[in-house]
């Protein structure tokens, strides 16, 4: 069989797998029927969000408008791609299905990247469609702005996919098996930070029009600026020649990472898949990690906090996956970095404001425990959670609280400390920074939300990018909506000099809500059975 037709078979396969999800055993009761409405619903949500930047077309120039659209796409669509790429490109179980078949690793890689790009293009299309239509009414653009934007959007997706593949291949080439998992997580996290920070470039662009690019040369280093420049060159009536620099940089960067990722380094993809199959190796670091974990749960205050032995074991189980499991780390840390970077962007872009954006940055932190708990529900080893169903304990709440406490103690609070450190290091302290506190006070409440929505067991579901994307949108809407209200109240109370009273009131309400949520959770006694 020719290589081309193998490629077509693989593309068809991965396309099907994306839309159906990879694992369906939990749906056995319904004889494995498929939920086909999931993607439609996601597209509707994305299109709805896309409508929110349509009014900008009436006031902004082509470049600024395109930079906003590219920024939001980078934040929402490409971020999803980064999150799922690790498990799609390096799926251990898949090696046992496909690697012994007559298929070239290069074909496998190309098919996977094709589908990743295809899915991202569909999502980006839904997100950008309202803006592309609104773009027809841009003051300084030709009628073909939508076509120009579609082209630059496609280029940005190829660039992002290429950059991801280059990062992974470079890790494979330069680091051995022992360091591979850690390096992949670090690189993916760094890539997420760059993407999220880059996606917010429109905040700066909006402030300093790109005609001032000569004074803000660093803007030309941000991907949304590259591709927005391309939009402007292709569709604006009179574009400043300076835009050629970022536009050429974008096209060149796309070609370079594309050539490196899909051609030059593609041959080593098979080596990476083989490395995944190596189950042995040095275990000394892992044993040390295990000892460290077992030690800290015996010391106050953790020992007081984890008096229930089931909670303690759930804490240890979760902690083990947080620090040792490749798949968990690849999903969790990049998503966390997003939650840490965004408040920083708010803080810095709100430097000259009255403090509302600082308050909102604090509230954004609420997403952190929620994100952690949502991610900790998924694992490649979800079948092992049957253990909780057949042991005679009968209650899921201690398992939830153990995992929740691990998420808070080992991830959320250290992340807050890092954030506080960065703020203190780079930003002069002023009283407006107190506006971050309301966000911290409400953290424990947000950490209970997944337990209210359904009975929750740690690591008990196979990861499904579609479901996770929908949940992400819904929870983001809930957190952001509530946070916006609270941020306004916090900002107003500081302005009216009654902030301590506001904080006290918020703490009292948060405690009451927390207690009510715990009580509500304890009423759900049944486990979710497959």
């Amino acid at each position, binding site marked *: *069989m020719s290589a081309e037709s*193998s490629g077509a078979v693989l593309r068809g396969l991965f396309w099907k797998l994306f839309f159906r999800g990879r694992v369906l055993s939990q*749906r056995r009761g319904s*004889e494995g029927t498929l939920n086909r409405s999931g993607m439609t619903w996601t597209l509707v949500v994305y299109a709805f969000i896309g409508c929110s930047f349509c009014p900008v077309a009436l006031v902004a120039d082509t470049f600024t408008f395109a930079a906003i659209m590219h920024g939001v796409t980078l934040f929402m669509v490409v971020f999803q791609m980064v999150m799922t790429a690790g498990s799609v490109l390096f799926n251990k179980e898949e090696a046992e*299905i*496909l690697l012994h*078949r007559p298929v070239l690793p290069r074909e496998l890689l190309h098919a996977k990247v094709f589908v990743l790009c295809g899915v991202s293009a569909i999502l980006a299309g839904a997100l950008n469609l309202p803006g592309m239509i609104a773009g027809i009414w841009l003051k300084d653009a030709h009628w073909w702005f939508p076509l120009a934007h579609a082209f630059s959007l496609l280029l940005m997706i190829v660039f992002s996919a290429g950059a991801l593949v280059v990062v992974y291949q470079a890790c494979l080439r330069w680091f051995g098996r*022992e360091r591979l998992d850690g390096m992949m997580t670090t690189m993916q996290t760094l890539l997420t930070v760059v993407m999220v920070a880059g996606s917010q470039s429109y905040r700066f662009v909006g402030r300093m029009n790109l005609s001032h690019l000569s004074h803000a040369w660093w803007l030309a280093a941000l991907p949304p600026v590259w591709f927005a420049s391309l939009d402007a060159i292709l569709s604006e009536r009179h574009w400043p020649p300076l835009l050629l620099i970022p536009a050429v940089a974008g096209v060149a960067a796309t070609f370079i990472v594309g050539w490196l990722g899909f051609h030059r380094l593609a041959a080593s993809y098979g080596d990476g898949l*083989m490395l995944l199959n190596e189950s042995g190796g040095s275990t000394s670091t892992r044993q040390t990690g295990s000892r460290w974990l077992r030690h800290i749960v015996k010391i106050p205050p953790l020992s007081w906090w984890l008096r229930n032995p089931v909670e303690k074991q759930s804490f240890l189980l979760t902690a083990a996956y947080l620090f040792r499991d490749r798949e968990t780390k690849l999903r969790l840390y990049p998503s966390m970095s997003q939650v840490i970077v965004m408040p920083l962007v708010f803080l810095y872009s709100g430097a000259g404001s009255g403090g509302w954006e600082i308050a909102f940055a604090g509230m954004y932190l609420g997403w952190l425990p929620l994100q952690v708990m949502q991610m900790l529900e998924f694992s490649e080893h979800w079948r092992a959670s049957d253990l909780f169903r057949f042991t005679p304990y009968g209650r899921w709440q201690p398992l939830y609280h153990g995992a929740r406490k691990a998420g808070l103690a080992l991830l959320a609070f250290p992340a807050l400390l890092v954030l506080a450190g960065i703020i203190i290091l780079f930003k002069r302290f002023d009283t407006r920074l107190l506006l971050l506190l309301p966000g911290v006070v409400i953290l424990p409440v947000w950490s209970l939300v997944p337990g209210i929505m359904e009975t929750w067991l740690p690591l008990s579901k196979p990861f499904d990018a579609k479901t996770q994307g929908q949940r992400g949108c819904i929870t983001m809407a809930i957190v952001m909506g509530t946070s916006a209200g609270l941020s306004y109240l916090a900002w107003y109370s500081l302005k009216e000099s009654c902030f301590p009273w506001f904080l006290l009131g918020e703490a009292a309400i948060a405690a009451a809500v927390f207690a009510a949520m715990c009580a509500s959770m304890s009423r759900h006694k049944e486990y979710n059975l497959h």
Partner: protein
Amino acid sequence: MLSIRDLTKRFGAQLAVDHLSLEVPAGQIVGLLGPNGAGKTTTLKMLTGLLRPDSGTATIAGFDIVTQPLEAKRVFGFVPDSGAVYESLSGLEYLLMVAALYGIDETEATGRIGRFIEFFELGMDTLKNKLLGAYSKGMRRKVVITAALLHNPRVVFLDEPLEGLDANAAVGFKALLETLAREGKTIIYSSHILDVVERVCHRVAIINQGRLMVDGSPEELLRQHGAPTLESLFTRLTGSTDLEQRAETFAKTLRS
């Protein structure tokens, strides 16, 4: 048909397979026996291109698995012990996808699949309409075995293939293996179920700690080592002594 020379694999400090050599002619069923962690699965993963050997060579029907992977992969079939499949495909979709990767056109593949499902007593309706995630373990195993044999391979690697199969299917499968061997196919059967290996295999290779301990027909091995059964030879070679005494001691600890 299968030639393994000095095949070696290390995982860090641990030597998983230690200079393993084996020659298997066409039409022979070889049982690969060994305790847990002996290196059976690692050996099969190297032979099927899932792992790269640190040293040594393996050729399948004359094709080197490292330097001619595509040619080698076209002539063998593999049933991995994990039984991994894409759970969101129906059984038929999965088998047609596998057939396409071996260059078998859909009409031809559907005919072959029909013959297999008749043999395994799987209904075509189930295969068409039910997703693999909803299959029982045994049904899924039947699909994995079908996927390994669909392209009529010259060499078949089986890693614990009977796991999950019911007694009737297991008996039928063992008969199928004998028929395939008579047709000239080479079969490497890795298992730790000794009586099945003893009954099905023409030749047994026992490996322990990555090294080949003995290799020969079951009768020959029993005669050479003066062992009454394959089980006693296995426990003697792999160092598992006083098992009954240890079981008794363990049971006592449970009672106390």
